[in-house]
């Protein structure tokens, strides 16, 4: 199905682009013959690349039919102007609205492989944070290439977007997008640079109280938005925090992700034992933040700006911070 396996460059770093072009020309000259043979034996020209998780995968030269197995990837693809190449996404891909119109392949954890096969994708994009290893294995065995996408910090997210653009042949769009995102981030950082950092508790789930660990977007975003996460010394990705410990750490601000399944009245917390004793609850310093804060997609920067507005309200906005 795929062409011959010839060794090419490692496309792991996005700022090696100039080295790439030279190397590519050189190698193509050497490998023209096997390349032609590869053309004859397979339907599409292919190249061996290293995906964002370090796996080596054989992907088509110009992938036209893309399937996304994670909402963040779907968002990114649309943001890169690749929306029309997306032929399938998961049941939970809702942003942008056009994503909802695409054929569905099932839930994130257990996508229906038959549907994926039936959509005849050139390339499937997935993420180890969202998808199971078993899905990746099975796609591999079916001969469908899977490109892994991963990021744990804001910087990595930007690199990931650029890499996707490069791999999918939309490099200029990617670069433009990333530059504008960086500008917005720097604007926020500059604004909050001189302000004192409030202590922030990010509540992923409140029963039991679960928050974000050090190596997550949330902690990174809070940091850049001029705050300090009180849970960044805890171990694990989504560590549980006891209420007493949360009380002891005395956060200034509490943030909740906004989602359909979770939008309690903040006033309820003023009645809950433990919560009602927290200074942040008493002072009503509780805010909802877009759930894009947990997605390695361009909207992460929207979330960043929201957090910055919550922690450091721009002059003149005063009490308009609630909800």
């Amino acid at each position, binding site marked *: 199905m795929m062409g011959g396996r010839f060794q090419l460059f490692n496309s792991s770093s996005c700022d090696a682009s100039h080295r790439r072009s030279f190397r590519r020309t050189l190698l193509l000259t050497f490998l023209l013959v096997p390349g032609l043979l590869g053309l004859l034996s397979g339907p599409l020209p292919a190249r061996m690349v290293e995906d964002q998780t370090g796996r080596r995968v054989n992907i088509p030269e110009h992938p036209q039919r893309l399937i996304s197995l994670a909402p963040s990837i779907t968002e990114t693809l649309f943001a890169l102007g690749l929306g029309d190449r997306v032929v399938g996404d998961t*049941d939970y891909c809702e942003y942008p609205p056009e994503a909802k119109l695409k054929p*569905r*392949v*099932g*839930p994130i*954890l*257990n*996508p*229906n*492989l*038959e*549907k994926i*096969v*039936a959509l*005849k994708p050139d390339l499937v994009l997935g993420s*180890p*944070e969202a998808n*199971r*290893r*078993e899905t990746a*294995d*099975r796609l591999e*065995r*079916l*001969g469908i290439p899977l490109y892994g996408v991963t990021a744990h910090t804001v910087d990595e997210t930007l690199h990931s977007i650029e890499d996707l653009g490069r791999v999918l042949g939309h490099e200029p769009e990617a670069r433009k997008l990333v530059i504008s995102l960086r500008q917005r981030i720097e604007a926020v950082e500059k604004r909050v640079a001189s302000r004192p950092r409030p202590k922030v508790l990010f509540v992923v789930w409140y029963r039991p109280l679960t928050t974000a660990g050090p190596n997550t977007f949330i902690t990174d975003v809070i940091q850049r938005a001029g705050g300090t996460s009180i849970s960044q010394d805890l171990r*694990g*990705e*989504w560590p549980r925090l006891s209420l007493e410990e949360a009380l002891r750490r005395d956060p200034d601000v509490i943030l909740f992700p906004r989602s359909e399944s979770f939008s309690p009245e903040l006033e309820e917390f003023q009645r809950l034992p433990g919560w009602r004793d927290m200074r942040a609850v008493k002072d009503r310093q509780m805010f909802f933040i877009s759930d894009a804060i947990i997605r390695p997609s361009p909207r992460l920067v929207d979330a960043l700006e929201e957090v910055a507005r919550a922690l450091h309200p721009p002059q003149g906005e005063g009490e308009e911070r609630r909800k």
Partner: protein
Amino acid sequence: MKVAATRRNALALTIILFVGLVAVALGALLFGGVHLPLGEVWEGLRGSASYPQATSIIRGIRLPRILLAMLVGAALGVSGTALQALLRNPLADPYVLGISSGAALGAIIALWVGGRVAAASPAAAFAGALATMAWVYLLGRRAGRLASYTLVLAGVVTASFLSAVILFVLTLLSTRDVRGIAFWLMGDLSVVTDAQLRVLFPIVLLGVSALYLFAKDLNILLLGEEEAAHLGVNVARVETATYLLASLLTGVAVSVSGAIGYLGLLVPHLGRMAVGTDHRTLLPVSALGGAIVLVVSDTLARTVVAPGELPVGAVTAVAGAPVFIYLLRRTAG
């Protein structure tokens, strides 16, 4: 209707059920997340190059899964029957002696230690199953022999201890891994490699055949250990062999598919209702019956909430519990 256990009847039943199994398996090929017309199913099965999607779907997705369901269903059906005879208890199931907990713990530890090495999981699970099997055997011996009640005690205690350890280790895993494990703990037939099938097939075949050699001894064992000894049965040898073979079958099944519940408990019951307690007919009936039941359950799991999928353990539980209650009431009444 009870069938006299003669060589002829056992053979006839085996053939009939085998044909039934093949029919069910072929039928199951028609179902899945994507609707394939009959012609394409056939082309896919033949592997014709002009129908690559159908081939991928039929040969790459549906067929391995159906084969796995057959092997696991047979393994669990037979080991459930054998353990019920060994423990002289119709309520025994293949997991009562802790094998599935041991396998689960093996897989979870591998996940925790090795990170993302999912390929090692079946091997680690099987190692866990073997270790548990050895441990319970040593614990359950009395005067150098397996005594069924100490065996059950040893197994139950081990199983609950292991479950506690599993819960503990689960809190140490990241949430992402926990989600993956949940599928596995419930029984999931979607994760199968050709290599696994190639290993599983001879093991299940040999295990089931070897147990069949003890079929007439198992009949006698049902009378009680002393009575069996008085009838000339080498009780120690039969019990040990039955225990080892049943545990081996359970161990390989659980290692590749997780702990699919109710099958090992109910298939022997249904088999007994159909053909009686003579293991010379009951064992093949349980093997083939278990295979048929699991293929059907898995087909339901794949189609009921399409395009999503249920783990097959959910289907066997939802269907199994009412069947079990019905059987209980029938025997009590």
